[in-house]
């Protein structure tokens, strides 16, 4: 038992799960058990969106210091707007809409990487700049009009299976695939290697450029995917639909134990952290404290979790 625990506590993701469970227990203690299951269901359905983009952001952050994709929120918006406008509430146009939305996400990824590689703009600023352009594209294309998703998409996005959102299962599958890619493919190893030492990665014969390209593409495509399903889930695309996801995408990655300095990624941690941040928000809402206190508590709890977890990490 104690040995299992000793092994478990070495895992960087364990702390986000412990935090999540602690927050959940505190919440249901407050409500005297009322709604304990429903809260978890809600957490799962909302956390999936954060997890989708978190996985992309995780890959980007893993490629090393300075790498972060700030264009995710704008890409979510653009993909959502494009999908909804092309689908135009018509089930028959579902696939074209998805293809178009993923197509523009592809272009976003290409553009981001072009800025980073060809113009050698530091990723953080390249993606910030491109996010402005992407948002403008969404504004000028969508005109701020909110179109409902086709019923099939809406049903799919809100469907549940055995009380668990269908999307959560799919995102679980996606997570397993990404974890496998990271551990067991040369692309994944290359990403981890670049994050530790890009020069050494080049000399070890790894294809550094291709891996970085693929990573920014992956992040953009996952953001696009999130845009599509989120529009389906929440009844349409809006220009501000991505706003909450900027800090969230970074937060779930780093709270989940992925190294900010690159070279170490953690898929289960993204789940733990996404659920934790959602439940934390819910807990503070349910406690009914005023906004200032809620914000302070949010910050302090994040710092507390990372502090408890941090001592066991080898590197920052």
């Amino acid at each position, binding site marked *: 038992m104690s040995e299992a625990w000793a092994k478990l506590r070495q895992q960087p993701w364990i702390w986000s799960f412990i935090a999540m469970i602690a927050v959940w227990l505190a919440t249901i203690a407050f409500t005297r058990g*009322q709604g*304990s299951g429903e809260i978890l269901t809600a957490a799962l359905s909302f956390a999936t969106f954060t997890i989708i983009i978190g996985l992309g952001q995780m890959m980007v952050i893993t490629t090393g210091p300075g790498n972060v994709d700030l264009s995710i929120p704008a890409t979510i918006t653009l993909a959502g707007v494009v999908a909804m406008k092309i689908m135009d509430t018509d089930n028959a146009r579902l696939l074209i809409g998805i293809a178009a939305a993923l197509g523009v996400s592809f272009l976003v990824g290409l553009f981001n990487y072009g800025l980073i590689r060809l113009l050698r703009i530091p990723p953080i600023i390249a993606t910030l700049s491109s996010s402005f352009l992407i948002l403008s594209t969404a504004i000028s294309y969508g005109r701020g*009009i*909110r179109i409902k998703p086709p019923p099939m998409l809406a049903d799919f996005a809100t469907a549940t299976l055995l009380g668990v959102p269908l999307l959560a299962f799919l995102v679980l599958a996606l997570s397993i695939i990404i974890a496998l890619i990271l551990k067991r493919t040369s692309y994944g190893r290359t990403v981890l290697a670049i994050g530790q030492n890009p020069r050494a990665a080049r000399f070890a014969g790894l294809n550094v450029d291709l891996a970085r390209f693929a990573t920014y593409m992956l992040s953009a495509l996952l953001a696009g995917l999130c845009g599509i399903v989120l529009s389906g889930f929440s009844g349409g695309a809006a220009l*501000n639909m991505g706003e909450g996801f900027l800090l969230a995408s970074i937060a779930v990655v780093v709270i989940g134990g992925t190294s900010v300095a690159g070279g170490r990624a953690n898929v289960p941690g993204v789940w733990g952290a996404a659920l934790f941040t959602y439940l934390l928000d819910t807990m503070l809402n349910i406690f009914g404290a005023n*906004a200032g206190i809620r914000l302070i508590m949010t910050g302090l709890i994040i710092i507390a979790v990372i502090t408890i977890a941090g001592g066991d990490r080898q590197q920052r």
Partner: protein
Amino acid sequence: DTKDKKIALSNNYAGNSWRQSMLKSWDKVTKQAVADGVVAAADPFTTSENQVTEQAAQIQNLILQGYNAIVINAASPDALNGVVKQACDAGITVVSFDGIVTEPCAWRIAVDFKKMGAVQLDYLADKMKDGGNLLEIRGLAGVFVDDAIHKGIEEGVAKHPQFKVVGSVHGDWAQEVAQKAVAGILPSLPEVKAVVTQGGDGYGAAQAFKAAGRPTPLIIMGNRQDELAWWKEQKDANGYETMSVSIAPGVSTLAFWVAQMVLDGKQVPKDLVVPFLRINQADLEKSLETTEKGGVANVEYSKEDAEKVVAGK
């Protein structure tokens, strides 16, 4: 005579349908005015983020550009006072609307946000004699509009003590955020009779109730077309009743005319109040018809309408 006067719109946010509607109304009405030779120019300017400093810098640049009047939807009521004063000192007419500024030299076209909160409770008190539990969806913490509407709701609750706010979440005026927050708090709440909002979050709230398998309470709507359409659907299916209240984005055009009148040398009181746009059960179909699909219920002002408002009629 204002035919060689130039007016600018200083806007600080474009990321939601209300603001897009506002810009569209501005575009429609001022293009016509320019074509008619009423003014020489009426250019809209938007900053990328809802930030005081960016808007302040923007206004300073507008001063340099030599506009005769600047119409402002301000990011903060006090924090732009410095630059508004600079504009006034440079002889520029400043008209603020929706997000008004407190600097005395500027004109203010205010919406009584507090009342917007209070009427929701009055409506509910009328509808539900026994009162009940309420869920409040607020906006972005620390912003003036959020505070004002919230105070209105608090006052309303004090006036109608049969109501009790059992839960309050910040939806940051974004549907996804609101839906997320409501879904989270809902399982912990007792039966909710009604949801009071700040506009635009009604549809998201309805979705969250549906997803949680709870009976749909009375949700106050915020004039968006998707909300009205949902309301209509419910009304047709089960006679659902509610009201909808928000500010018409076309208030930007009122501000435009006010600026034009001031430039024209007309006497215009510094403080004007515009009524918010309220849609009742009976007006639903009509409003839905006139509202663009995916847009916001709107009222645009003609010069005559504006003169009526100024005259206090």
